[in-house]
C-alpha cells in the first residue's frame, strides 16, 4: 500500500494529464445521451456520465492539492516522460506556479461541472467528454516543460474549446464560433513560426535549456531569435486578450453558454502563464542581448488593456458582455503586474490572477442565473420584470462585484494593493496607480449601474419567471464566490505562496539544475544540425537519466 502510494505520488504530474484524458475516453465509450434526457437508456447514460465526470474532477482537485502541498516545500518535481534525459525527451515540471495553476483549474472545474449537470450538459452532444479534454489540455499546458509540447496542449485545449463554444447551438454561437476558430488557427500558425525560429537559433525547445542558451545568442542571430519570441508574445497576448488582440473575447465569451464561459475564464490565464514562462523567465533577466525583451511593450499594452476592458464594461448592454469586458480588464491588471518584472509584482500578479479567475467564473454563472429569472429581457441591461430571488441573487452580485472591482476586504482589493505596493520606485508608477485605481472605480460604476437596473429598476407589470433557480445552480455559483472569500481569509498563506512562486520562477539556475541534471548546465551551443566532432549524439551520450519524479 505504501509503495503504491509512493508510486502514485511519483507519477502525479503525468496523472494530472492522464486522468482527464482517460475519463474523456471512458465517457466517449459510454456514449452520448442522444437527446434523450428524460427516462430511457439515454437518460441513464447521462446520469452515469455526470457521476464519472464529477468523480474525475474531484479526484483531479485532490491530486492538484497534493501537488501544491509538494511544491510548497520548494521542491521542483521533474517527470521525464519515457525516462529520456532532459533536453532530448519531453519533461513535465511542477514548480509552485504550475501546481498553483493546476489547483486553480480544478477549483474552477469542479463548481462549473456541478453547475453544468443542472441541465446544460444535455443541451448538446458529448459535453462531459469535451470538458475533460479541455481540462487535459489545460493541465498539460501548465505542467509541461517543453515549448513544442506546450503548443500541442494548446491545440488540445483549443480543439475542445471550439466544440464547447458551439455547445447548445444557436446561430450566434456558430457565427461567433467561426470567428473564434479562425482567429485561433491563425494564432496557432504564428505559434509554430515562433517556435521554429526559437529552435533554429538555439537548437532546443526545452524551457530550462532555452534559458541556458538564449543569453549566448548574439548579433544577427539574436534579432531573429527575438523576432520569434515577439511572435510568441502575439500568440500568448491573443490568448490572454492583451490589447489590441482582445476584441474577439467579449463576443465569444458572451455568446458561449454559461458553464463554458466560466471554464473559459481559465483559458485567458494560459496566455498569461505562457508570457510569464517564456518572456518573463527565458527572455527576462540575464538573457544576454535579449534581456527583458518584452518589458517596453508589455506594460503599456497591459495598461491599455485595463482601460479598454473597463470602458467596454461601462458600455455593455448585456450582463454577459459586462462580465466578459471585466475579464479583459482583470487580465490587463494581471499583465500590468507581470510587466513590472519584479518578484513582488509577480507575487501580486499570481495572487490577483487566482482571485480574478474565480470571480469571473462565478460571475458568468451568476449572469445566467439572473438572466433566467427576467423573462424575455434575459441578460439585457434594461428595466424588466423583477427576479424571483432578489435578495439571494442581489447579495451574490454584490459580493462578486465588490471583489471584481477590488473593494476591501475582498481579495481583489488585497491583490491590487500588493500590485500598487510592488510598483513603487518603478518609472511607470504614476501610470500604474492611475490606471489600476481608475479601473477599480469605473468597474464599480459599471457594476453598480448593472445591479441597480437588474434588481431595483424593475417593472412589476411585466411577467417574469416565477420559479427560482435550483439549489444545485445556486450552490455551484456560491461555491465559486465562497472560494474568493476564502482567498481573502487565507490571504497571508496564499500570498506567501505566490511570492515564493515568483521567487522560484526567477531562480533560473536551480530550475536548470533540476531539469537538465548537474551536467546539463554548460553553455553548450553545439546544435544538432551543425556537423562537428562534438555533436551531442544519441541520448545515450547524455547524463544518465535520473528516475522519474525524484
Amino acid at each position, binding site marked *: 500500500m505504501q509503495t503504491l502510494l509512493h508510486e502514485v505520488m511519483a507519477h502525479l504530474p503525468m496523472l494530472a494529464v492522464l486522468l482527464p484524458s482517460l475519463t474523456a475516453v471512458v465517457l466517449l465509450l459510454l456514449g452520448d445521451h442522444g437527446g434523450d434526457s428524460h427516462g430511457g437508456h439515454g437518460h441513464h447514460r447521462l446520469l452515469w456520465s455526470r457521476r464519472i465526470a464529477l468523480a474525475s474532477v474531484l479526484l483531479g482537485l485532490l491530486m492538484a492539492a497534493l501537488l501544491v502541498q509538494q511544491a510548497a516545500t520548494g521542491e521542483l518535481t521533474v517527470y521525464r516522460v519515457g525516462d529520456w534525459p532532459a533536453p532530448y525527451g519531453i519533461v513535465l515540471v511542477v514548480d509552485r506556479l504550475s501546481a498553483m495553476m493546476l489547483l486553480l483549474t480544478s477549483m474552477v472545474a469542479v463548481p462549473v461541472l456541478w453547475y453544468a449537470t443542472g441541465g446544460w450538459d444535455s443541451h448538446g452532444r458529448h459535453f462531459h467528454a469535451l470538458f475533460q479534454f479541455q481540462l487535459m489540455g489545460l493541465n498539460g499546458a501548465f505542467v509541461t516543460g517543453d515549448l513544442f509540447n506546450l503548443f500541442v496542449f494548446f491545440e488540445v485545449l483549443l480543439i475542445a474549446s471550439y466544440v464547447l463554444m458551439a455547445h447548445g447551438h444557436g446561430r450566434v454561437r*456558430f457565427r461567433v464560433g467561426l470567428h473564434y476558430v479562425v482567429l485561433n488557427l491563425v494564432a496557432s*500558425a504564428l505559434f509554430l513560426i515562433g*517556435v*521554429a525560429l526559437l*529552435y533554429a537559433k538555439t537548437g532546443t525547445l526545452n524551457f530550462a535549456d532555452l534559458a541556458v542558451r538564449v543569453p549566448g545568442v548574439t548579433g544577427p542571430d539574436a534579432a531573429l531569435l527575438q523576432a520569434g519570441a515577439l511572435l510568441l508574445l502575439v500568440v500568448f497576448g491573443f490568448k490572454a486578450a492583451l490589447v489590441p488582440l482582445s476584441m474577439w473575447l467579449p463576443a465569444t465569451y458572451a455568446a458561449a*453558454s454559461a458553464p463554458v464561459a466560466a471554464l473559459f475564464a481559465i483559458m485567458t490565464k494560459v496566455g498569461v502563464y505562457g508570457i510569464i514562462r517564456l518572456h518573463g523567465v527565458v527572455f527576462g533577466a540575464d538573457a544576454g542581448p535579449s534581456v527583458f525583451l518584452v518589458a517596453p511593450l508589455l506594460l503599456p499594452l497591459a495598461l491599455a488593456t485595463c482601460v479598454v476592458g473597463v470602458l467596454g464594461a461601462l458600455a455593455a448592454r448585456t450582463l454577459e458582455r459586462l462580465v466578459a469586458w471585466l475579464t479583459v480588464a482583470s487580465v490587463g491588471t494581471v499583465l500590468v503586474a507581470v510587466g513590472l518584472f519584479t518578484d513582488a509584482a509577480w507575487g501580486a500578479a499570481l495572487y490577483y490572477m487566482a482571485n480574478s479567475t474565480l470571480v469571473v467564473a462565478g460571475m458568468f454563472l451568476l449572469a445566467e442565473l439572473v438572466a433566467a429569472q427576467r423573462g424575455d429581457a*434575459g441578460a*439585457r441591461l434594461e428595466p424588466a420584470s423583477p427576479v424571483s430571488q432578489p435578495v439571494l441573487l442581489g447579495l451574490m452580485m454584490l459580493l462578486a462585484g465588490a471583489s471584481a472591482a477590488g473593494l476591501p476586504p475582498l481579495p481583489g482589493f488585497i491583490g491590487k494593493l500588493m500590485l500598487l505596493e510592488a510598483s513603487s520606485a518603478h518609472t511607470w508608477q504614476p501610470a500604474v496607480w492611475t490606471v489600476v485605481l481608475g479601473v477599480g472605480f469605473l468597474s464599480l460604476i459599471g457594476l453598480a449601474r448593472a445591479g441597480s437596473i437588474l434588481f431595483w429598476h424593475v417593472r412589476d407589470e411585466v411577467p417574469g419567471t416565477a420559479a427560482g433557480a435550483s439549489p444545485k445552480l445556486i450552490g455551484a455559483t456560491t461555491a465559486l464566490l465562497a472560494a474568493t472569500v476564502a482567498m481573502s481569509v487565507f490571504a497571508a498563506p496564499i500570498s506567501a505562496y505566490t511570492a515564493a512562486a515568483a521567487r522560484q520562477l526567477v531562480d533560473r539556475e536551480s530550475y536548470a539544475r533540476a531539469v537538465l541534471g548537474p551536467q546539463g548546465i554548460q553553455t553548450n551551443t553545439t546544435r544538432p544540425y551543425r556537423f562537428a566532432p562534438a555533436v551531442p549524439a544519441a541520448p545515450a551520450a547524455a547524463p544518465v537519466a535520473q528516475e522519474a519524479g525524484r
Partner: protein
Amino acid sequence: MISMEFLVASGIGFVVACGIYLLLRGRSFTVVLGLSLLGYAVNVFIFAMGRLWSGAPPILEGAGPFADPLPQALVLTAIVIGFATTGFVIELALRSHHENGTDQVDGIEPGEDGEDRDEAERGPGR
C-alpha cells in the same frame, strides 16, 4: 545561380502572402483555403528551420553530415493537428452557413442592413 535557400524562402513567403490575402476575404470558403495555405507554408518553414540538406540522413550513424531530425518530427505533429483543425473548421463553416443562411463570415450578406446585429448583441435566444 539562385540558391536553394532563396527559392524556398521566397516560396514560403509567396504562399503566406496568398494565405493572408484569402484569410481577409469575406466568405468562409476562401477563409478556409487561406488557413490551409498558411498551414502549408508554416509546415515548410518548420522543416526549413532544420536547415536545407540534400542527401543527409537524419540518423546519427556513420559519418556526417546529418540532417536535423527534430524539425521533421515537429512538422509531422503540426501536419496532423493542421489536418484535424481544417476538417473541423470546414464542418463549422457549413453549420454556420446552414444556421445563418449565408456563407459570409459575419453571417450577414453585404447590402443587408444590420438588423441581425442587434439580435446578436442580446445573446442566444433564451
